[in-house]
Protein backbone atom coordinates (compact mmCIF):
# COMPACT_ATOMS: atom_id res chain seq x y z
CA UNK A 1 0.00 0.00 0.00
CA UNK A 2 1.16 3.52 -0.76
CA UNK A 3 2.45 5.38 2.33
CA UNK A 4 -0.02 8.10 3.33
CA UNK A 5 2.68 10.77 3.26
CA UNK A 6 3.51 9.99 -0.37
CA UNK A 7 -0.17 10.33 -1.28
CA UNK A 8 -0.45 13.69 0.49
CA UNK A 9 2.68 15.05 -1.21
CA UNK A 10 1.41 13.75 -4.53
CA UNK A 11 -1.93 15.53 -4.10
CA UNK A 12 -0.27 18.80 -3.05
CA UNK A 13 2.26 18.68 -5.90
CA UNK A 14 -0.34 17.98 -8.59
CA UNK A 15 -2.69 20.65 -7.22
CA UNK A 16 0.24 23.08 -7.28
CA UNK A 17 0.97 22.18 -10.92
CA UNK A 18 -2.67 22.76 -11.89
CA UNK A 19 -2.78 26.09 -10.04
CA UNK A 20 0.47 27.36 -11.60
CA UNK A 21 -0.76 26.42 -15.10
CA UNK A 22 -4.13 28.12 -14.51
CA UNK A 23 -2.38 31.23 -13.21
CA UNK A 24 -0.11 31.31 -16.29
CA UNK A 25 -3.18 31.10 -18.55
CA UNK A 26 -4.93 33.82 -16.56
CA UNK A 27 -1.91 36.10 -16.94
CA UNK A 28 -1.90 35.34 -20.72
CA UNK A 29 1.62 33.92 -20.46
CA UNK A 30 0.48 30.48 -21.62
CA UNK A 31 -1.94 29.72 -24.41
CA UNK A 32 -4.76 27.30 -23.66
CA UNK A 33 -3.72 24.96 -26.47
CA UNK A 34 -0.27 24.49 -24.92
CA UNK A 35 -1.70 24.25 -21.39
CA UNK A 36 -4.05 21.35 -22.05
CA UNK A 37 -1.38 18.64 -21.83
CA UNK A 38 -0.04 20.14 -18.60
CA UNK A 39 -3.53 20.26 -17.08
CA UNK A 40 -4.11 16.65 -18.13
CA UNK A 41 -0.80 15.73 -16.45
CA UNK A 42 -1.87 17.47 -13.25
CA UNK A 43 -5.34 15.92 -13.30
CA UNK A 44 -4.11 12.35 -13.84
CA UNK A 45 -1.45 12.67 -11.13
CA UNK A 46 -4.01 14.19 -8.76
CA UNK A 47 -6.43 11.29 -9.26
CA UNK A 48 -3.72 8.65 -8.87
CA UNK A 49 -2.37 10.33 -5.71
CA UNK A 50 -5.74 10.85 -4.04
CA UNK A 51 -7.39 7.55 -5.02
CA UNK A 52 -5.03 5.16 -3.30
CA UNK A 53 -6.93 1.95 -4.13
CA UNK A 54 -6.83 2.81 -7.83
CA UNK A 55 -3.05 3.29 -7.70
CA UNK A 56 -2.72 -0.09 -5.99
CA UNK A 57 -4.92 -1.81 -8.55
CA UNK A 58 -3.03 -0.29 -11.49
CA UNK A 59 0.30 -1.20 -9.88
CA UNK A 60 -1.03 -4.77 -9.63
CA UNK A 61 -1.95 -4.83 -13.33
CA UNK A 62 1.48 -3.55 -14.29
CA UNK A 63 3.23 -6.10 -12.09
CA UNK A 64 4.63 -3.42 -9.75
CA UNK A 65 4.21 -5.38 -6.54
CA UNK A 66 6.82 -3.85 -4.24
CA UNK A 67 6.15 -0.14 -4.28
CA UNK A 68 2.94 1.21 -5.88
CA UNK A 69 4.05 4.92 -5.92
CA UNK A 70 6.56 3.93 -8.63
CA UNK A 71 3.53 4.01 -10.93
CA UNK A 72 3.17 7.72 -10.12
CA UNK A 73 6.70 8.35 -11.36
CA UNK A 74 6.12 6.28 -14.45
CA UNK A 75 2.92 8.15 -15.31
CA UNK A 76 4.53 11.54 -14.64
CA UNK A 77 7.49 10.62 -16.85
CA UNK A 78 5.20 9.46 -19.64
CA UNK A 79 3.29 12.73 -19.59
CA UNK A 80 6.46 14.81 -19.60
CA UNK A 81 7.64 12.85 -22.66
CA UNK A 82 4.30 13.58 -24.33
CA UNK A 83 4.60 17.30 -23.56
CA UNK A 84 8.17 17.44 -24.91
CA UNK A 85 7.26 15.55 -28.07
CA UNK A 86 4.33 17.89 -28.58
CA UNK A 87 6.66 20.88 -28.21
CA UNK A 88 9.07 19.41 -30.76
CA UNK A 89 6.26 19.30 -33.31
CA UNK A 90 5.28 22.86 -32.44
CA UNK A 91 8.90 23.97 -32.80
CA UNK A 92 9.20 22.27 -36.21
CA UNK A 93 6.05 23.96 -37.42
CA UNK A 94 7.27 27.35 -36.18
CA UNK A 95 10.63 26.85 -37.89
CA UNK A 96 8.95 26.09 -41.23
CA UNK A 97 6.59 29.04 -40.88
CA UNK A 98 9.49 31.30 -39.95
CA UNK A 99 11.48 30.35 -43.05
CA UNK A 100 8.39 30.81 -45.19
CA UNK A 101 7.90 34.28 -43.76
CA UNK A 102 11.52 35.23 -44.48
CA UNK A 103 11.12 33.94 -48.05
CA UNK A 104 7.88 35.84 -48.54
CA UNK A 105 9.36 39.06 -47.21
CA UNK A 106 12.37 38.68 -49.53
CA UNK A 107 10.06 38.19 -52.54
CA UNK A 108 7.78 41.08 -51.56
CA UNK A 109 10.68 43.45 -50.90
CA UNK A 110 12.07 42.70 -54.33
CA UNK A 111 8.65 43.30 -55.85
CA UNK A 112 8.29 46.64 -54.06
CA UNK A 113 11.76 47.67 -55.21
CA UNK A 114 11.04 46.69 -58.81
CA UNK A 115 7.76 48.63 -58.76
CA UNK A 116 9.60 51.72 -57.57
CA UNK A 117 12.38 51.22 -60.09
CA UNK A 118 11.61 48.67 -62.83
CA UNK A 119 14.13 45.89 -63.25
CA UNK A 120 16.77 46.58 -65.82
CA UNK A 121 16.22 43.92 -68.46
CA UNK A 122 19.33 41.85 -69.06
CA UNK A 123 19.80 43.45 -72.49
Amino acid sequence: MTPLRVSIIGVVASLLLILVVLELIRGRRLKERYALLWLATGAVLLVLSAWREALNTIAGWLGVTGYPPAVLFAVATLFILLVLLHYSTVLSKLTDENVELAQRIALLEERVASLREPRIPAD
Partner: protein
Amino acid sequence: MNLEHLARTVAIVPAYNEVAAIGRVVDEIRAFDPAIDVVVVDDASTDDTAATAEAHGATVLRLLFNVGIGGAVQTGFRFALEEGYGRAVRLDGDGQHDASELGKLLAPIETGTADLVIGSRFVDSNGSYRPPLGRRIGIRVFAWLVSILGGQRVTDTTSGFLALDRVGIELFAAEYPHDYPEVEATLIALRSGLRLSQVQVDMRERETGSSSITFVRSLYYMVKVSLALLVASLRRYPRLTGARR
Protein backbone atom coordinates in the same frame (compact mmCIF):
# COMPACT_ATOMS: atom_id res chain seq x y z
CA MET B 1 1.97 35.70 -63.46
CA ASN B 2 4.09 37.26 -66.11
CA LEU B 3 3.22 35.36 -69.27
CA GLU B 4 5.93 36.76 -71.49
CA HIS B 5 8.47 35.22 -69.10
CA LEU B 6 7.46 31.62 -69.82
CA ALA B 7 9.99 31.32 -72.59
CA ARG B 8 12.67 32.83 -70.38
CA THR B 9 15.31 31.38 -68.10
CA VAL B 10 16.25 32.48 -64.62
CA ALA B 11 19.54 31.65 -62.92
CA ILE B 12 19.18 31.17 -59.16
CA VAL B 13 22.35 31.76 -57.17
CA PRO B 14 22.25 31.25 -53.40
CA ALA B 15 25.00 33.17 -51.63
CA TYR B 16 26.16 33.59 -48.07
CA ASN B 17 29.14 35.89 -47.50
CA GLU B 18 30.50 35.45 -51.03
CA VAL B 19 31.48 39.05 -51.71
CA ALA B 20 34.78 37.99 -53.26
CA ALA B 21 33.22 35.56 -55.75
CA ILE B 22 29.67 36.72 -56.42
CA GLY B 23 30.49 39.48 -58.91
CA ARG B 24 32.31 37.09 -61.21
CA VAL B 25 29.60 34.44 -60.88
CA VAL B 26 26.97 36.95 -62.03
CA ASP B 27 29.20 38.24 -64.83
CA GLU B 28 29.90 34.73 -66.14
CA ILE B 29 26.22 33.82 -66.27
CA ARG B 30 25.39 37.00 -68.14
CA ALA B 31 28.35 36.46 -70.44
CA PHE B 32 27.10 32.94 -71.22
CA ASP B 33 23.67 34.28 -72.19
CA PRO B 34 22.64 37.88 -71.62
CA ALA B 35 18.98 36.85 -71.89
CA ILE B 36 19.17 34.86 -68.65
CA ASP B 37 17.89 36.82 -65.66
CA VAL B 38 20.23 36.35 -62.71
CA VAL B 39 18.68 36.20 -59.24
CA VAL B 40 21.02 36.11 -56.27
CA VAL B 41 19.42 34.94 -53.03
CA ASP B 42 21.35 36.57 -50.22
CA ASP B 43 21.04 34.36 -47.13
CA ALA B 44 21.52 37.23 -44.67
CA SER B 45 25.20 37.79 -45.50
CA THR B 46 27.12 40.03 -43.15
CA ASP B 47 29.32 41.33 -45.95
CA ASP B 48 28.47 43.24 -49.15
CA THR B 49 27.33 40.20 -51.15
CA ALA B 50 23.92 41.70 -51.91
CA ALA B 51 25.14 45.11 -53.01
CA THR B 52 27.93 43.58 -55.11
CA ALA B 53 25.54 41.23 -56.88
CA GLU B 54 23.19 44.12 -57.57
CA ALA B 55 26.02 46.25 -58.93
CA HIS B 56 26.82 43.43 -61.37
CA GLY B 57 23.25 43.47 -62.65
CA ALA B 58 21.59 40.70 -60.65
CA THR B 59 18.18 40.88 -59.04
CA VAL B 60 18.75 40.30 -55.33
CA LEU B 61 16.36 38.58 -52.93
CA ARG B 62 17.38 39.47 -49.39
CA LEU B 63 16.50 37.01 -46.64
CA LEU B 64 15.81 38.62 -43.29
CA PHE B 65 17.85 36.04 -41.41
CA ASN B 66 19.95 33.03 -42.35
CA VAL B 67 17.64 30.19 -43.39
CA GLY B 68 20.23 27.75 -44.75
CA ILE B 69 21.07 26.77 -48.29
CA GLY B 70 17.84 24.88 -49.03
CA GLY B 71 15.57 27.63 -47.77
CA ALA B 72 17.58 30.16 -49.77
CA VAL B 73 17.43 28.16 -53.00
CA GLN B 74 13.71 27.60 -52.53
CA THR B 75 13.21 31.37 -52.33
CA GLY B 76 14.64 31.46 -55.85
CA PHE B 77 12.33 28.66 -57.04
CA ARG B 78 9.37 30.58 -55.60
CA PHE B 79 10.51 33.70 -57.42
CA ALA B 80 10.74 31.68 -60.65
CA LEU B 81 7.26 30.27 -60.05
CA GLU B 82 5.64 33.61 -59.30
CA GLU B 83 7.36 35.49 -62.10
CA GLY B 84 6.35 32.76 -64.49
CA TYR B 85 9.74 31.58 -65.74
CA GLY B 86 9.64 28.47 -67.89
CA ARG B 87 13.17 27.36 -67.04
CA ALA B 88 15.49 27.77 -64.09
CA VAL B 89 19.12 26.90 -63.46
CA ARG B 90 20.82 26.90 -60.10
CA LEU B 91 24.50 27.62 -59.49
CA ASP B 92 26.45 28.10 -56.28
CA GLY B 93 27.49 31.60 -55.29
CA ASP B 94 31.10 30.59 -54.62
CA GLY B 95 31.99 30.10 -58.27
CA GLN B 96 32.48 26.33 -58.23
CA HIS B 97 29.97 25.84 -61.04
CA ASP B 98 31.15 26.91 -64.46
CA ALA B 99 28.50 29.01 -66.22
CA SER B 100 29.88 28.06 -69.62
CA GLU B 101 28.50 24.54 -68.97
CA LEU B 102 24.93 25.86 -68.67
CA GLY B 103 24.32 25.00 -72.33
CA LYS B 104 24.81 21.30 -71.58
CA LEU B 105 22.43 21.52 -68.62
CA LEU B 106 19.74 23.37 -70.53
CA ALA B 107 19.82 21.24 -73.69
CA PRO B 108 17.59 18.38 -72.40
CA ILE B 109 15.15 20.96 -70.97
CA GLU B 110 14.95 22.80 -74.28
CA THR B 111 14.30 19.64 -76.28
CA GLY B 112 11.69 18.64 -73.69
CA THR B 113 13.33 15.33 -72.82
CA ALA B 114 13.87 16.09 -69.13
CA ASP B 115 12.25 18.08 -66.32
CA LEU B 116 15.34 18.10 -64.13
CA VAL B 117 18.94 18.01 -65.34
CA ILE B 118 21.69 17.48 -62.81
CA GLY B 119 25.26 18.44 -63.50
CA SER B 120 27.05 15.33 -62.32
CA ARG B 121 30.75 14.93 -61.66
CA PHE B 122 30.58 11.18 -62.11
CA VAL B 123 28.76 10.40 -65.37
CA ASP B 124 32.12 9.72 -66.99
CA SER B 125 34.37 7.66 -64.80
CA ASN B 126 37.32 9.69 -66.07
CA GLY B 127 35.97 13.07 -64.94
CA SER B 128 38.58 15.21 -63.26
CA TYR B 129 36.85 15.64 -59.89
CA ARG B 130 38.57 13.66 -57.13
CA PRO B 131 37.12 14.42 -53.70
CA PRO B 132 38.75 13.16 -50.49
CA LEU B 133 38.00 9.49 -49.70
CA GLY B 134 35.44 10.15 -46.95
CA ARG B 135 33.40 12.45 -49.09
CA ARG B 136 33.70 10.15 -52.09
CA ILE B 137 32.24 7.29 -50.04
CA GLY B 138 29.42 9.52 -48.79
CA ILE B 139 28.58 10.65 -52.31
CA ARG B 140 28.62 7.04 -53.55
CA VAL B 141 26.43 5.73 -50.73
CA PHE B 142 23.78 8.39 -51.24
CA ALA B 143 23.86 7.97 -55.01
CA TRP B 144 23.30 4.24 -54.51
CA LEU B 145 20.48 4.79 -51.99
CA VAL B 146 18.66 7.33 -54.15
CA SER B 147 19.05 5.07 -57.19
CA ILE B 148 17.38 2.19 -55.33
CA LEU B 149 14.64 4.23 -53.66
CA GLY B 150 13.96 6.37 -56.72
CA GLY B 151 14.14 3.64 -59.33
CA GLN B 152 16.65 5.33 -61.62
CA ARG B 153 20.43 5.27 -61.58
CA VAL B 154 21.75 8.56 -60.23
CA THR B 155 25.48 9.23 -60.20
CA ASP B 156 25.75 12.46 -58.23
CA THR B 157 23.08 13.39 -55.70
CA THR B 158 25.11 16.04 -53.92
CA SER B 159 25.51 18.35 -56.89
CA GLY B 160 23.90 21.77 -56.62
CA PHE B 161 24.37 22.46 -60.33
CA LEU B 162 21.02 21.84 -62.02
CA ALA B 163 18.41 22.96 -64.52
CA LEU B 164 14.63 22.71 -64.26
CA ASP B 165 11.64 23.14 -66.52
CA ARG B 166 8.34 24.60 -65.36
CA VAL B 167 7.19 21.30 -63.79
CA GLY B 168 10.42 21.12 -61.80
CA ILE B 169 10.10 24.75 -60.71
CA GLU B 170 6.57 24.07 -59.47
CA LEU B 171 7.67 21.00 -57.53
CA PHE B 172 10.67 22.59 -55.82
CA ALA B 173 8.82 25.85 -55.09
CA ALA B 174 6.31 23.79 -53.14
CA GLU B 175 8.62 21.19 -51.66
CA TYR B 176 12.31 21.61 -50.94
CA PRO B 177 14.28 20.55 -47.83
CA HIS B 178 15.70 23.46 -45.84
CA ASP B 179 19.14 22.18 -44.92
CA TYR B 180 21.46 19.88 -46.91
CA PRO B 181 18.73 19.64 -49.54
CA GLU B 182 20.27 18.11 -52.69
CA VAL B 183 20.10 14.38 -51.96
CA GLU B 184 16.54 14.38 -50.64
CA ALA B 185 15.39 16.77 -53.40
CA THR B 186 16.65 14.31 -56.03
CA LEU B 187 14.60 11.52 -54.47
CA ILE B 188 11.52 13.75 -54.18
CA ALA B 189 11.86 14.63 -57.88
CA LEU B 190 12.13 10.96 -58.90
CA ARG B 191 9.21 9.92 -56.70
CA SER B 192 7.12 12.76 -58.12
CA GLY B 193 7.68 11.34 -61.59
CA LEU B 194 10.00 14.02 -62.94
CA ARG B 195 12.15 12.95 -65.85
CA LEU B 196 15.72 13.22 -64.63
CA SER B 197 18.75 13.41 -66.83
CA GLN B 198 22.40 13.83 -65.92
CA VAL B 199 25.20 15.52 -67.79
CA GLN B 200 28.90 15.41 -67.04
CA VAL B 201 30.29 18.65 -65.62
CA ASP B 202 33.51 19.64 -63.99
CA MET B 203 33.52 21.68 -60.83
CA ARG B 204 36.17 24.12 -59.84
CA GLU B 205 37.92 24.18 -56.54
CA ARG B 206 36.55 26.86 -54.25
CA GLU B 207 38.08 30.19 -55.13
CA THR B 208 37.47 31.89 -51.81
CA GLY B 209 36.27 30.97 -48.34
CA SER B 210 36.29 27.42 -47.09
CA SER B 211 33.87 24.53 -47.38
CA SER B 212 31.31 24.60 -44.60
CA ILE B 213 31.65 20.86 -43.96
CA THR B 214 33.46 20.00 -40.71
CA PHE B 215 33.60 16.60 -39.02
CA VAL B 216 30.65 17.10 -36.67
CA ARG B 217 28.67 18.62 -39.48
CA SER B 218 29.42 15.79 -41.85
CA LEU B 219 28.22 13.37 -39.19
CA TYR B 220 25.02 15.39 -38.81
CA TYR B 221 24.83 15.53 -42.60
CA MET B 222 25.00 11.74 -43.00
CA VAL B 223 22.42 11.07 -40.29
CA LYS B 224 20.03 13.85 -41.29
CA VAL B 225 20.11 12.96 -44.98
CA SER B 226 19.70 9.22 -44.30
CA LEU B 227 16.67 9.90 -42.10
CA ALA B 228 15.22 12.27 -44.71
CA LEU B 229 15.65 9.63 -47.43
CA LEU B 230 13.97 6.99 -45.30
CA VAL B 231 11.02 9.25 -44.54
CA ALA B 232 10.79 10.51 -48.12
CA SER B 233 10.52 6.94 -49.38
CA LEU B 234 7.66 6.28 -46.95
CA ARG B 235 5.76 9.43 -47.95
CA ARG B 236 3.42 9.64 -50.91
CA TYR B 237 4.18 12.19 -53.58
CA PRO B 238 1.59 13.11 -56.19
CA ARG B 239 2.86 12.05 -59.61
CA LEU B 240 3.43 15.12 -61.72
CA THR B 241 3.05 14.79 -65.46
CA GLY B 242 6.38 14.99 -67.19
CA ALA B 243 4.79 16.67 -70.20
CA ARG B 244 5.76 20.27 -70.62
CA ARG B 245 2.97 22.81 -70.53
